[in-house]
């Protein structure tokens, strides 16, 4: 498979061969429309990274709903929601990552075009790669065909080698199986095109009690252990079991990209 590397060179990659990015500094992006599970994925990935001894920079640039700030008090955010402020803040973030060489998780708002403009203006993927930072992007997709529009638009200007399409089963309407609900997505040329250029795909399992965790602002590990904050309702054994299964399944599903988020 001929693949255009992030530095612009064309190299031949066999299936199964991607550069190992274990231990390398990265910027992990989550992209997609609103309400496709970006922040949920980011929370899980950041928690996982920290549990493994990582000290990532957590950057919450969601201008409409700074979810990560509520879960990670050390998260950083732009000084304001104004376009220019966000752009300058993103530039600073990239400069700091290049200088300090650590890993960052960057959450942008659903459908926010900031990343598209930033990526286009900086030629972001080759730029970061040139400076030793591996760009990693996870596209969260629900079963709505319009969820592909963000992917289509961003792929034109930001197509890192480490790209993963995440089919979020939590977004599948009640009463439908993920298999049938995602059929139009899987068959769509936008999805096909991303896969053919080298994007991976995986599933994010559904957690039926996700809202209960969100409402309490708990980490997944705390929720599984039943550690609630003072004054909050307890989490019963059944819900804890559901969370444990979800974490186990999610870990298995994302195992193939473990190094991308470590």
């Amino acid at each position, binding site marked *: 498979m001929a693949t255009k590397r992030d530095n612009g060179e064309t190299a031949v990659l066999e299936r199964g061969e991607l550069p190992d990015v274990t231990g390398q500094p990265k910027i992990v992006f989550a992209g997609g429309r609103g309400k496709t599970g970006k922040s949920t994925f980011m929370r899980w990935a950041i928690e996982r990274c920290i549990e493994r001894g990582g000290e990532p920079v957590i950057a919450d640039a969601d201008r409409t709903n700074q979810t990560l700030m509520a879960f990670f008090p050390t998260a950083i955010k732009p000084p304001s929601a104004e376009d220019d402020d966000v752009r300058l803040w993103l530039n600073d973030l990239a400069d700091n990552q290049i200088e300090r060489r650590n890993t960052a998780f960057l959450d942008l708002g659903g459908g926010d075009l900031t990343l598209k403009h930033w990526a286009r203006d900086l030629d972001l993927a080759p730029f970061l790669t040139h400076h030793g930072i591996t760009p990693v992007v996870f596209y969260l997709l629900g079963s709505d065909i319009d969820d592909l529009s963000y992917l289509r638009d961003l792929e034109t200007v930001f197509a890192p080698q480490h790209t993963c399409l995440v089919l979020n089963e939590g977004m599948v309407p009640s009463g439908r199986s993920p298999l049938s609900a995602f059929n139009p997505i899987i068959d769509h040329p936008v999805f*096909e095109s991303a896969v053919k250029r080298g994007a991976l*795909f995986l599933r994010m399992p559904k957690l039926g009690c996700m809202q209960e965790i969100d409402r309490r602002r708990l980490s997944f590990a705390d929720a599984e252990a039943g550690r609630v904050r003072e004054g909050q309702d307890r989490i019963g054994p059944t819900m804890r079991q559901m969370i444990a299964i979800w974490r186990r399944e999610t870990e298995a599903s994302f195992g193939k990209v*473990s190094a991308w988020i470590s």
Partner: protein
Amino acid sequence: MTTEPDILSAISRAGLQKRGTLKEWMIANREAFASKLEGFKPDWPILAKVFADAGLLDQRGNRPTAEATRKTWQRVRKLSKPGPRPRDAPAPTGNAETAPVHRPPVTAETQPTGQAGTGDYRDEVRAMLSKGLQVPKPLDK
């Protein structure tokens, strides 16, 4: 033309006790199966019957036809080949006919890290997704 008893016994030794899809079986036993076909023109109608009688189904849950068997094998052959054996690794012992053929456990480490470039990525995505409740099949009478 493959000698029928030979290929049948090879498939039998490979173990078909467990029901599954034909594609899964072919992936798990790709090398052994390929070695049996090497140099011969496969008799796909016979092979399809053997697989079907052993309980292997196609991706849609039907008995595989000769054409479906042939196409499945074509697709499986195109999947990534195992990496080269490390230079210092011991050579495999035994022969393909007597060695037990089994599917290695799939772990994060053994999962392929790239999926692109395969002609049938849709099959892979669908195999990955949760299937939901299945319509029960009628009992055999």
